[in-house]
């Protein structure tokens, strides 16, 4: 009787152990956090980004999840485009929802604010919209991998184009108009510095700093026109950009002052299909139509359009890529363990919608391109796209490593 009882107890223990072992081998879900601006000034870009993330997650989960056995569970939070809210939500995602990676954010100030939180809690952080170069240049975090061309790369791409135009047209003076926050400041500063280097004949006449979320640009438009610069360089994003374009057009601004290289993403091309001035020279970060020859992009556009009945914006492309960056990092690591994935992504070559790219080791910056082109109608699409598109690759445009080392040393 005694022996029988021992056998039964041992059997239960063994069975319990096996069940436990089995369940731990089978599918620990991968908790993925998204910390984007669902409301506020960044909502326009982030909605597309979230739709693309969901699409990527559905595709990966249809194959069983990461490594075929870790289904992804999404936790989406709204930063309201405020750094304090971004930090709060990031902490909540990490501590309550136990996420292993956070995608975000829209605002560079928000991304920079919660980057140290991710580092402290050893959680991966993949910004795909916010692109201040300071996110990876200084206060480096080995947990942060940036998959959007940063503000320096974008500025350099514009500068190369503007320097060429300045030489051709004999431009001498210019003004800048940039949103008064982290991204606007850092992009404007980089552009001005690079213009000094590549087009030393150009003189910066005046700087204008509208606040983020400005609704009425008339005073800026008339002040810029009064300066009579040879050209104006703008660093406005999202709805600020839309409002400026609408109002500047009504002033005949673009007829009088060249405005090359301002951010006109696919979102603006779609939203302002009827009203956007044709012939503008714009800059964007990941236009789908530039890479329709890449099978991953062609499939993404087809699936995104089928699901949402619209074309994906730059923001959708980059957030989609962010999920697949994570997937390939996990596959390379052979594990969902964050330390292993972090190590696997270091210097890794990644297949993205924008082609095969790699992470630079010094700053975990993806070698992604910036794109400059002329806004023009195209019979293939119900909105204007870029013609004469120039792709400036990551290695052509990113900051030299020596400067990054110097910047980090100076920061210390």
């Amino acid at each position, binding site marked *: 009787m005694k022996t029988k009882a021992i056998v039964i107890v041992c059997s239960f223990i063994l069975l319990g152990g096996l069940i436990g072992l089995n369940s731990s081998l089978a599918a620990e879900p991968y908790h993925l956090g998204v910390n984007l601006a669902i409301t506020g000034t960044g909502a326009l870009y982030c909605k597309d980004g979230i739709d693309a993330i969901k699409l990527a997650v559905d595709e990966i989960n249809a194959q069983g999840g990461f490594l075929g056995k870790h289904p992804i569970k999404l936790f989406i939070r709204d930063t309201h*485009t405020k750094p304090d809210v971004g930090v709060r939500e990031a902490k909540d995602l990490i501590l309550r929802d136990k996420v292993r990676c956070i995608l975000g954010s829209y605002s560079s100030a928000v991304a920079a604010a919660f980057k140290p939180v991710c580092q402290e809690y050893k959680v991966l952080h993949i910004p795909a919209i916010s692109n201040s170069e300071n996110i990876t240049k200084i206060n480096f975090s080995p947990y942060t991998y940036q998959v959007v061309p940063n503000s320096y790369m974008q500025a350099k791409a514009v500068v190369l184009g503007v320097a060429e135009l300045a030489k051709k047209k004999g431009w001498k003076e210019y003004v800048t108009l940039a949103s008064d926050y982290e991204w606007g400041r850092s992009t404007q500063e980089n552009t001005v510095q690079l213009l000094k280097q590549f087009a030393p004949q150009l003189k910066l006449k005046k700087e204008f700093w509208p606040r983020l979320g400005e609704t009425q640009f008339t005073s800026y438009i008339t002040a810029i026109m009064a300066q009579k610069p040879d050209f104006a360089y703008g660093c406005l994003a999202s709805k600020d950009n839309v409002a400026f374009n609408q109002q500047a057009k009504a*002033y005949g601004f673009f007829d*009088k002052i060249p405005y090359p290289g301002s951010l006109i993403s696919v979102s603006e091309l779609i939203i302002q299909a009827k009203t956007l001035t044709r012939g503008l020279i714009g800059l964007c970060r990941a236009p789908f139509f530039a890479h329709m020859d890449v099978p991953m992009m062609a499939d993404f556009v087809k699936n995104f359009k089928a699901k949402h009945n619209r074309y994906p914006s730059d923001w959708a492309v980059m957030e989609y890529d962010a999920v697949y960056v994570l997937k390939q990092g996990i596959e390379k690591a052979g594990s969902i363990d964050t330390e292993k994935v972090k190590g696997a992504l270091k210097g890794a070559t990644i297949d993205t919608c924008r082609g095969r790219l790699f992470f630079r080791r010094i700053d975990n910056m993806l070698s992604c391109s910036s794109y400059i082109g002329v806004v023009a109608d195209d019979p293939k699409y119900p909105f204007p796209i870029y013609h004469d598109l120039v792709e400036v690759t990551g290695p052509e445009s990113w900051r030299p490593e020596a400067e990054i080392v110097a910047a980090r040393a100076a920061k210390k």
Partner: protein
Amino acid sequence: MDISLIFSQFLSGLSRGMMLFLIASGLSLIFGVMNILNFAHATLWLAGAYFCYTFWYLMQDYGFGLWVSIALASLALALIGWFIEVVLIRRVYKRELPEQLLLTYGLILVIGDLIKLIWGVEDKIIARPPLVAGPVFFFGIPFDSYFIFVILVGFAVAVGLWWFLKKTRYGHIVRAAVFSREMVSALGIPIPRIYTGVFVLGIFIAGLAGAVQAPVGSITLGMDMAVVVQAFCVVVIGGFGSLLGTFVGSMIVGEVYAFSILFWPQGALVLIFIVTAFILIVRPWGLFGTPMRA
């Protein structure tokens, strides 16, 4: 300094000031008469812009679409204003100011979420009719033709409100109610009905302002928070409850902003707050206001 440059910046400040006047006049009217500080005023202004978009969207193929949409959006907001006053605001007239603020702050959240539910998070854009899509020139200086319409609407509202308050019997009653609700009530005039009318009028103007703003840029969530601070600056400078003060305050804020962009672009907003703080210190009831009632 080129005189055309000064004139150009003046026009720009005038249009900005008029836009602010349209927003702030309803806010000031409601506070002046009812002693209710409506935090949700700018959110209702935003709702006016969204309503305008919807009406315009339905009539976009017609040349008159935008103009009719502006009128319909204002009326829609008046209706919402009536509902809010009857259901909510009426119950807090006799409550302390913090309770009133809490209620109207709650309204910001509720209306903001309703807007998100109904219209989504995407920006909305109204394409202007050709008549107001391009520039007009004053002595060779370009000016957005739509802002002529904005300035005209601003003047119309200012004159209309002045005429209503000074020249009509109802206006006289409203002004009397500002000074002594008890006396007006003792004369057999129903104060609640007067208050409802004033609140509806204030929100009608907020709706009109939102609808007029709609074709200026894109309509998006969060716009209300961007303007509410400047609207409060206007009424603080001009004096709560003073129509003339609101008008002058709007012009001060608009022109200070426009000219500081010309001379000191980095400090445009700072200057407005410095002016506001100065007025608060030396004359807390504003340039044309009267000391607040207890």
